[in-house]
């Protein structure tokens, strides 16, 4: 048996509607080595991990474990082989004890009853092995996030783990907690476990990883030893793409200041302050979880603001819920079209008019159908929404057309400030172009545009000014002229 590589993937391809998530990726993992995987949002890292853990099946490609071909990888099968993953969102049962979590569903029984003594003893052994001090009888909900992550690691260890995948372990940890996790990673490494480490924080990679693989746009760009590379060249390989010419070069006259956000704090945001102007496209850059979406949600009244002030046209305003925001002329095209934007089971027409119903209704709230139909028709035409009729259910449209329906719904109310959160995610290039043109037309008409995008070329191409965020704070401001992907990457991976 060839044991040099514990896990090998050959030619893995995964296609989703509208996008190739992974394009013939081949990669090998060695035991006793920490292998980092880096890449921008959407580069294909998560898809790759899910294929290893059997959560999804590749459309093409093969998996080999300890030299043996795995015909059909499933989550159960992967666990059996000793492949374990720790996700950002921990899979623990908070109301059960540490010991019960570690051996969940694998209890030893005595006379049909769970043998709790044995459970505690075995859990204590595993926790000892980790070199930490956790009482196996504590309830998981009483532990800090860092310790909870250690329980996840203990769970993997109890399954005799050979390949441990850690997806952004540092995102939720404090520095001291992270040190602990690193020590354990070091220990596991010495025991011959192969560790796949995914992180946006490049410093960490130089601290604990041996090898690093860069993903970009679903392709594997390069694999090398960590000691042979540096942060600069990693960033270059992560983002190295020309800003394509699909972004029309435009610059609109920046008008008066409309929005002023002052020291806004929420649960996830730390003293956010910025201004936005008429005719200006203000971009928000940052990695997932940096707080970009949280900023616009707070501004829109979707999440509560703990402290800070918001001024509109110089006047202080209170925004308690989305309905307040809409009255003040703010529109939000949310990040997740299917969960937050579109009403999938309703027709195209009913989706478009839902925000503006009040203005279309007369006596007793009865909707003036003719007027409604006219305005719906107008926007279907203007945005070139491809639908056989206004009665078609939104769920039957393509992603791009669904997004256009969501846009139409907000254009109908004629807002002053229009926030686009990932407006082109998962839609095809043609529809993207149309959305870019629309954003530019709105800016030209003197609207305030706020744009969040994880696609850096899009953000640079479509913004006049870019605010970079990391960990709930604004870490920098760049004029488009000086903005490069490298600079943004630096500011967002502090």
């Amino acid at each position, binding site marked *: 048996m060839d044991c040099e590589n514990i896990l090998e993937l050959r030619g893995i391809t995964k*296609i*989703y*509607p*509208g*996008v*190739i*998530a992974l394009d013939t990726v081949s990669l090998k993992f060695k035991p006793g080595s920490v292998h980092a995987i880096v890449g921008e949002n*959407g*580069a*294909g890292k*998560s898809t790759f991990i899910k294929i290893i853990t059997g959560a999804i099946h590749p459309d093409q490609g093969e998996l080999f474990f300890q030299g043996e071909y795995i015909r059909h990888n499933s989550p159960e099968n992967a666990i059996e082989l000793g492949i374990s993953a720790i996700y950002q969102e921990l899979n623990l049962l908070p109301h059960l004890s540490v010991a019960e979590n570690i051996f969940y569903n694998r209890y030893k029984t005595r006379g049909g009853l769970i043998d709790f003594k044995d459970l505690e003893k075995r859990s204590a052994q595993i926790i000892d092995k980790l070199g930490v001090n956790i009482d196996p009888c504590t309830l998981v909900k009483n532990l800090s996030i860092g310790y909870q992550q250690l329980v996840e690691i203990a769970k993997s260890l109890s399954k005799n783990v050979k390949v441990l995948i850690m997806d952004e372990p540092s995102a939720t940890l404090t520095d001291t907690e992270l040190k602990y996790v690193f020590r354990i990673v070091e220990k596991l490494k010495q025991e011959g476990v192969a560790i796949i480490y995914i992180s946006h924080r490049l410093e960490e990679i130089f601290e604990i990883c041996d090898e690093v693989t860069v993903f970009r746009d679903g392709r594997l760009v390069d694999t090398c030893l960590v000691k042979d590379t540096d942060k600069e060249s990693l960033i270059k390989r992560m983002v190295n793409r020309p800003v394509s010419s699909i972004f029309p070069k435009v610059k609109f006259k920046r008008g008066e200041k409309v929005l002023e956000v002052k020291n806004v704090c929420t649960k996830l945001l730390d003293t956010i302050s910025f201004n936005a102007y008429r005719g200006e496209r203000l971009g928000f850059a940052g990695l*997932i979880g940096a707080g970009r979406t949280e900023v616009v949600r707070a501004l*829109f009244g*979707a999440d509560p603001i703990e402290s800070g002030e918001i001024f509109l046209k110089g006047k202080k305003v209170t925004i308690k*819920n*989305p*309905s307040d*925001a*809409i*009255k003040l002329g703010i529109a939000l095209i*949310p990040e*997740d*079209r*299917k*969960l*937050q*934007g*579109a*009403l*999938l*089971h*309703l027709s195209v027409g*009913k989706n478009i*008019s*839902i*925000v503006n119903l*009040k203005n279309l209704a007369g006596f007793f*709230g*009865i*909707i003036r*159908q003719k007027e409604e139909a006219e305005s719906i028709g107008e926007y279907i035409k203007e945005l070139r929404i*491809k*639908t*056989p*009729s206004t*009665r*078609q259910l939104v*769920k*039957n*449209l*393509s*992603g791009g*057309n669904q997004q256009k329906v969501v846009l139409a*719904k907000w254009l109908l109310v004629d807002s002053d400030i229009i926030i686009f959160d990932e407006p082109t*995610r*998962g839609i*095809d*290039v*043609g529809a993207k172009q149309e959305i870019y043109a629309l954003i530019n037309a709105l800016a030209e008409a003197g609207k305030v545009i706020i744009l969040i995008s*994880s696609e850096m070329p899009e953000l640079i191409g479509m913004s006049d000014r870019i605010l970079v965020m990391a960990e709930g704070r604004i870490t920098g401001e760049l004029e488009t002229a000086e903005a490069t992907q490298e600079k943004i990457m630096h500011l967002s991976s502090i």
Partner: protein
Amino acid sequence: MSAPNRIELQKNRNAKIDWSSAGILIILAAMIILFGIMNPKFFTPKNLGNILRQISIVGICAVGMTAVILTGGIDLSVGSVIGITAVSGAMMLSSGMPIPIAIVLVILIGATAGGFNAFCVNIFGIPPLITTLGSMTALRGLIYVITGGKSVYGIPASFKFIGQGDIFIIPVSAIIMVIVFILGYVILNNTVFGRRIYGIGGNFEAARLSGIKVKLELAKVYIYAGMLSAIAGLVLMSKVNSGQPSAGDGYEMDIITAVVLGGVSVSGGEGKLIKVIIGVVFMGVLANGMMMLNIGEFQQRLVKGLVLIFAVALDIVSKNYSDTRGKKIRHTGKPVADSGCKE
């Protein structure tokens, strides 16, 4: 990045046959023929009038229940609201209160009951199933407390007209039901309120982000359902010419089954009031036919319970079927978070 465009398929199937409601119509027709053959009296004008009278109460409440279920909720307390309004209406009328004032007060009682349900759902976040299970039992208890378990008699003869009278040959109660259905239809399809009901049930978060004050709208829906139950309570009270403490007991079963048979999705957001009429007639014919065939009360319960399960199963199966051909959205409440290319 250009190749994958073609993978995005656009499916536009408009004229899909609605198999689940077609199926129910076929079963309904078969049932009517079967009952007609087995008991010739089934088709007499008198019996058809009886069916109309029987379904009017379920029908009136089904309009409110449809709105509640469309928001993704449920109202188990409907039968008890019928009971409390019937009994309190009977008490008011027997004490000599003018009929119009009594009607207004009774409808207010129904609204209050609905408001209480909404309060528990909105303020404490108790799921509607549990809230209304509690209020169903509590209200029934309240009925027995205020009546001491005794029926209330002494309703003026002029009030009988509502539940027992006919205009030409059509029962007045059936006419009331038709008016309620028309109003309910206009509310659901032509008013802002109705659109919001569909929005909330279809996608709560998207509705909220569209500026809909979801809690306010939910409160309105439960109050609306409570008011309709009160109207049904008055009809029932007039029909039996008394306030029976057991009035409306078990009606929630018939009403919910009728609505679900009518194709309203138990997970909310989808359904048409027009089709609910089929469900209401179905339940009425089933109950009447079984009675005419001398099928006992116990067996009737057995059948009705199975019909409810059948109706929900039909709803889920037909939707899973159409979904496997469309997008990946599951119908057990939340859509599956799998938008493809998310990192």
